């Protein structure tokens, strides 16, 4: 029997990601054993209670939103290496776009995997360099002159990305753009929970598109 590339990726992905989870847990385990410092159930649970209800939900939502977007290899890697919304997902979308391939095809899957792998490797190297050169870099990176550039990284990223995707599919884009503009202008405090609004936008857009498609507008 010939095993397809797709099936192989899932096998490698499941094994390597399970190993990654085990390694992630080994760090706190090491701290507890090496320093003989177990957190104790009380403090651990009260800390976890403060973040898990939100971040477990966000993580689940991200899995179900980005999983289908990033393809198989890309998803396993992307979820292990993190920084999805601000880095891995835009990198994958841009790579799909410039290669002219569709997501959820084998070519698309390969391109997403390559983009996310390159992005992860570069991030890891930049962080290692950053850590080693922290003393000389810190005053430059934290200088007030450069502050606006880092404050505006998301608008600078999504402005360019939007042009490409909105211009190609403006009929799909109108409804969610209006919805999000109204939501964020009416309730600015939503900005801190943008990751919850990503699936809201995605589901809303899919529903509107379905209606438009049935009516023959798309």
């Amino acid at each position, binding site marked *: 029997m010939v095993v397809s590339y797709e099936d192989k990726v899932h096998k490698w992905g499941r094994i390597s990601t399970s190993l990654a989870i085990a390694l992630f847990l080994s760090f706190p385990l090491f701290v507890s054993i090496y320093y003989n410092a177990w957190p104790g159930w009380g403090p651990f649970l009260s800390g976890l209670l403060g973040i898990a209800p939100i971040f477990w939900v966000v993580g689940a939502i991200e899995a179900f939103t980005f999983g289908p977007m990033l393809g198989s290899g890309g998803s396993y890697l992307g979820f292990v290496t993190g920084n999805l919304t601000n880095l891995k997902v835009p990198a994958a979308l841009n790579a799909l776009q410039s290669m002219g391939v569709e997501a959820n095809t084998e070519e698309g899957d390969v391109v997403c995997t390559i983009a996310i792998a390159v992005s992860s490797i*570069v991030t890891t190297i930049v962080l290692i360099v950053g850590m080693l050169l922290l003393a000389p870099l810190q005053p430059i990176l934290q200088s007030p002159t450069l502050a606006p550039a*880092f404050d505006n990284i998301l608008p600078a990223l999504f402005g360019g990305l939007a042009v490409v995707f909105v211009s190609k599919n403006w009929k799909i884009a109108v409804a969610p753009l209006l919805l999000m503009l109204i939501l964020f202008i009416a309730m600015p405090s939503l900005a801190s929970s943008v990751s919850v609004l990503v699936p809201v936008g995605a589901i809303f857009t899919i529903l509107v598109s379905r209606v438009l*498609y049935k009516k023959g507008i798309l």
Partner: protein
Amino acid sequence: MFDVNSLPLFVMAAVVVGYVLFQSFFFLFKALKRAKELGMDMGKIKRTMNATAIFTIAPAVSIILGMITLSKFLGLPLPWLRLSVLGALTYELPAASTAASAMNISLSETVTSPQVYSVIVWVMTVGILSGIIIITLFLKKMQSGMMNIRKKDEKWGKIFMDSLFLGMISAFLGMIFADIRLGLQGWIPVVIMILSALIMLICGYFVKKKKITWLENYALPISMLSAMALSIPVTAIMGGGL
């Protein structure tokens, strides 16, 4: 005495980061091999890889800023580990501060107690595992679901994916407008977004009309980095102190 920057912690963090680096290279080589088998344009793939690398640098540098912020409190090894794998800026800071406040500790001083450090490390680790566990268990199912949608109706399958992408992009574009009611300086992100979009359009013009095809791959890093650079004078003009 317990030191948040002690060598064993660095070594442990390095082991995990090293593994993830290996995993990235593994998938990269497998995907490249598959691309060759599928007869894809390898020159174009190489350009896409270069463009992705350039695009990644600015967000990655901003992650260093997050590492610096967290390191004052947690030392370097833990923030380095967490921001290299799994985490994201939007997660680590709230997670660390929530864990700290559960023990009535302030985020302004370096942790000196191994107990406190241990609680924070456990909470930060367990608190973020949901996404990766779901992916490990259910991604295969999700993917075959997507394939079925596509098989049933090719055109709708494509519209479905585009809707998913645009739903996400819309959420972020909307967020850029969140501060406009604060007055002129609240419009700064909007101006930066428009500048980035304009530069993208100019790149598109050169790609399509002047047939400068290599530019297509680099259009996003170019528009992002130029817009970031322009945000410095724009902020000065529009009076954004904070």
